[in-house]
């Protein structure tokens, strides 16, 4: 990847963050936060996007962002009141801006349909005068960011004392102090004095190690942050003390430290450091109150660079790390945990006394390894907030498409979930929200008649519960009309007319393929994609989805997900002398064949009688070709499995050993896909165990799984 691509990518990453900040701001504003700072934050976000887009030549994006920004500026400067109507328009503009960013990322500079109309509305809303005035002002140029550097020397000259001590490895990084000093010399009047005290005699001189330190004195109009920028590339390779002399004090002709470096260095260093600290604190405190006034008259240009630098210097920031690096770390930690388990097992085999040093040491190692694993997994975890923000937009759009007034309430935005899980959750969640608004919420009149607020509420909740993530999509609509669902299911031949179904069973009919509960297929959610797709998506993520509905009160869809896709909660079983893992998410219950009712159909095909009907029985050992299906099942265990496509079957295994988290390993890297096997894992004894894929097993088991009893079992 070339450097330009890198920059482009980081621009779009930044855009994501800026758009998030913008949406955040709108949320706060609509909640009644009427402070200047929030408006400023929104303005800055839009402005930064415009700036970046300009640098990359996304003219459509720049043009739209410019108009948007102009409108925002009107509100920010108090020339226009931000009423609800305008805020709604801003939100739509925000959505459009997100679209434009996405378009620019995927297709380069492309026009977006909505832009023109929105721009017209913006113009209308804030008045043409303001727009004309704003357009007359010079358009934004990214170069202006560096304005301070060649600013006229009108500002008072400041006097800085700089001590620069290179680390011995400075030259190895390709840096040269002379070049740095030349740059400084361009900023103002520079005097440099070298301190040669540390230079060893010629005999022991290492020519590639820098043993010289320098005292510099600089008179310039530039800020300390700008001076520090000069040294940006040698940061970490040098000791840099930069302090401003009180402007009143005359600059000493000769910096004191020079005459007697050995004695003076320490105290002067200390004073320099405290000076620097104070200076830093001052500049930080001074920025915020000025904000409102300062940005007012800089419609085109960014706030001054010093403030930018101050922002960058904020502690506890974030870093961007490539996912590959994290995944590699996760793999290694997985190995560590396995190795630790192996070690524990072999020590246990040595019959050591329980309280021996080895056992105690191993115990703490185990704890440490566990903590590291948790910590590393946490790196991949991301708050669900950005996803929830995307949902806010879905709610707005679905609301206006159906003509219903809808409010979105989000709870637990800070809940962290694996990044991959979040990404793959967007589509199912979008569908469920559209579904909730289209089918769940009643029309305004119906709500009023039922004594509810005409504005419907969709609540999106995320929470951690017992090692899993729970995401609920709840509406306060009329609940599932079970009579209608039942009638529809009979009409479509999904159930028999005489079938008696519990309320929960009727609710679950919604997940059957091809089921749509609205009489006419609506444009919004009836696109031939049903809740069955949502369910299979969630199952693919190792999750489950359930419905809870109260007539008149509303419906809640609950999604339960694993925290990560790198590990899997599995049941360790033995079959035909092989150890295998069955995903817990697929197992409904375990049965003793002795106590279960098992019938034989035809030539040895066994079925299990169960509350929900007849369930085919598959011998796992036989399926994999490890053995002939056993004649008697008395010593075996049955696992009742439900696949994501709602098919049920029972698996014969020999024994259940354990239930544990296993690290998922690919079989395909060095081998190939194996039917009925999802992946492999490494157990505590270092041996590999195969993780079975229940869906493939039922699919590959031929007529048993495809028999006509499956629709009934699926309920």
């Amino acid at each position, binding site marked *: 990847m070339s450097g330009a691509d890198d920059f482009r990518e980081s621009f779009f990453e930044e855009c994501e963050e800026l758009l998030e900040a913008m949406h955040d701001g709108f949320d706060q504003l609509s909640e009644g936060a009427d402070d200047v700072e929030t408006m400023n934050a929104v303005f800055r976000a839009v402005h930064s996007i415009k700036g970046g887009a300009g640098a990359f030549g996304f003219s459509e994006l720049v043009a739209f962002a410019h108009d948007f920004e102009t409108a925002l500026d009107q509100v920010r400067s108090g020339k226009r009141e931000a009423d609800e109507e305008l805020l709604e328009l801003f939100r739509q503009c925000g959505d459009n801006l997100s679209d434009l960013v996405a378009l620019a990322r995927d297709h380069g500079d492309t026009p977006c349909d909505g832009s023109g109309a929105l721009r017209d509305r913006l113009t209308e809303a804030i008045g043409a005068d303001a727009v004309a005035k704003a357009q007359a002002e010079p358009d934004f140029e990214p170069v202006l960011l560096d304005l301070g550097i060649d600013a006229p020397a009108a500002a008072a000259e400041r006097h800085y004392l700089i001590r620069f001590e290179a680390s011995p490895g400075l030259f190895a990084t390709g840096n040269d102090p002379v070049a740095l000093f030349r740059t400084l010399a361009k900023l103002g009047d520079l005097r440099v004095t070298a301190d040669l005290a540390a230079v060893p005699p010629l005999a022991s001189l290492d020519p590639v190690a820098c043993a010289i330190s320098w005292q510099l004195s600089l008179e310039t109009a530039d800020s300390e942050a700008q001076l520090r920028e000069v040294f940006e590339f040698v940061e970490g390779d040098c000791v840099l003390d930069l302090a401003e002399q009180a402007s009143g004090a005359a600059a000493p002709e000769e910096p004191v430290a020079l005459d007697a470096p050995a004695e003076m260095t320490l105290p002067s260093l200390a004073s320099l450091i405290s000076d620097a600290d104070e200076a830093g604190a001052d500049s930080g405190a001074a920025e915020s109150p000025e904000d409102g006034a300062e940005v007012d008259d800089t419609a085109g240009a960014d706030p001054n660079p010093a403030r930018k630098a101050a922002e960058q210097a904020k502690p506890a920031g974030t870093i961007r790390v490539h996912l590959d690096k994290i995944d590699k770390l996760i*793999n290694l930690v997985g190995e560590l945990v396995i190795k630790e388990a192996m070690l524990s097992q072999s020590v246990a085999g040595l019959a050591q006394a329980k309280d021996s040093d080895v056992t105690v040491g191993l115990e703490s190692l185990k704890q440490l390894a566990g903590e590291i694993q948790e910590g590393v997994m946490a790196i991949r975890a991301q708050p669900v907030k950005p996803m929830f923000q995307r949902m806010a937009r879905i709610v707005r759009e679905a609301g206006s498409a159906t003509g219903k007034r809808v409010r979105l309430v989000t709870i637990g935005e800070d809940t962290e979930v694996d990044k991959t899980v979040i990404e793959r959750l967007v589509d199912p969640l979008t569908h469920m929200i559209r579904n909730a608004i289209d089918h769940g919420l009643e029309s305004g009149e119906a709500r009023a008649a039922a004594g509810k607020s005409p504005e419907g509420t969709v609540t999106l909740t995320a929470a951690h519960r017992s090692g899993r993530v729970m995401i609920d999509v709840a509406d306060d609509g009329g609940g599932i009309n079970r009579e209608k669902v039942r009638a529809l299911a009979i009409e479509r031949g999904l159930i028999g007319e005489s079938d008696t179904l519990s309320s929960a069973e009727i609710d679950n009919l919604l997940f059957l393929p091809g089921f749509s509960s609205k009489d006419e297929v609506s444009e919004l959610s009836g696109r031939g994609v049903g809740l069955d797709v949502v369910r299979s998506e969630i199952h693919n993520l190792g999750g489950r989805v359930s419905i809870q509905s109260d007539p008149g009160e509303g419906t809640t869809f609950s999604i339960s997900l694993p925290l990560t896709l790198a590990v899997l909660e599995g049941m360790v079983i033995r079959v035909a002398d092989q150890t295998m893992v069955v995903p817990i998410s697929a197992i409904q219950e375990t049965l003793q064949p002795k106590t279960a009712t098992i019938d034989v159909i035809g030539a040895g095909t066994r079925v299990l009688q169960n509350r929900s009907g007849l369930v085919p029985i598959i011998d796992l050992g036989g399926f994999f070709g*490890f053995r002939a299906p056993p004649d008697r099942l008395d010593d075996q265990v049955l696992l009742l499995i439900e696949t994501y496509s709602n098919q049920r079957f029972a698996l014969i295994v020999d024994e259940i050993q354990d239930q544990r988290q296993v690290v998922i390993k*690919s*079989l395909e*890297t*060095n081998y190939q896909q194996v039917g009925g096997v999802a992946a*492999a894992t490494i157990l505590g004894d270092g041996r*590999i165990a195969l993780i079975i894929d229940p869906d493939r097993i039922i699919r590959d088991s031929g007529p048993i799984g495809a028999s006509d009893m499956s629709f009934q079992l699926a309920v």
Partner: protein
Amino acid sequence: MMKDAILENRKSYCEVVAFRVSDQDFCFDLTSVREIRGWTETTMLPHAQPYVKGVINLRGSVVPVVDLSERLGLGATEPGPRNVIIITVLGQRTVGLLADVVSDILTVSETDIQPIPDIIDDGVRRFISGVLLVEGRMIRKMDLEMIIPTDGRSAG
């Protein structure tokens, strides 16, 4: 071909690892060998070719093990602690090859490699690219590409 380049660089000398499978001597380029380890119990793979003995854990990677004897049509190996697994890297894949014992690492010249005599049984012959005569022993140079086809994942 990388192999050719290496041969040329070393003035047509190359190092080979020599090993025994069912009382026959074989060898292939040392550059393909990642490590040699003792036999460890494998995990059986369902519906695998008979010569795929299963998979082992190689420091966290899932590595299949191929029984060379079975692959060459010389009968299945009953592996025990005396057997070795030669871990080889072929393209993007890492595969373990089950052999009886590793006997030597030899430096041979390209000119030492002779064409295969016609008498060799056809079943083995398609896996062999030539033969070497070292101290009176005949060592068959194995064609790894044939043992583990890199194209098409089903090693048939």
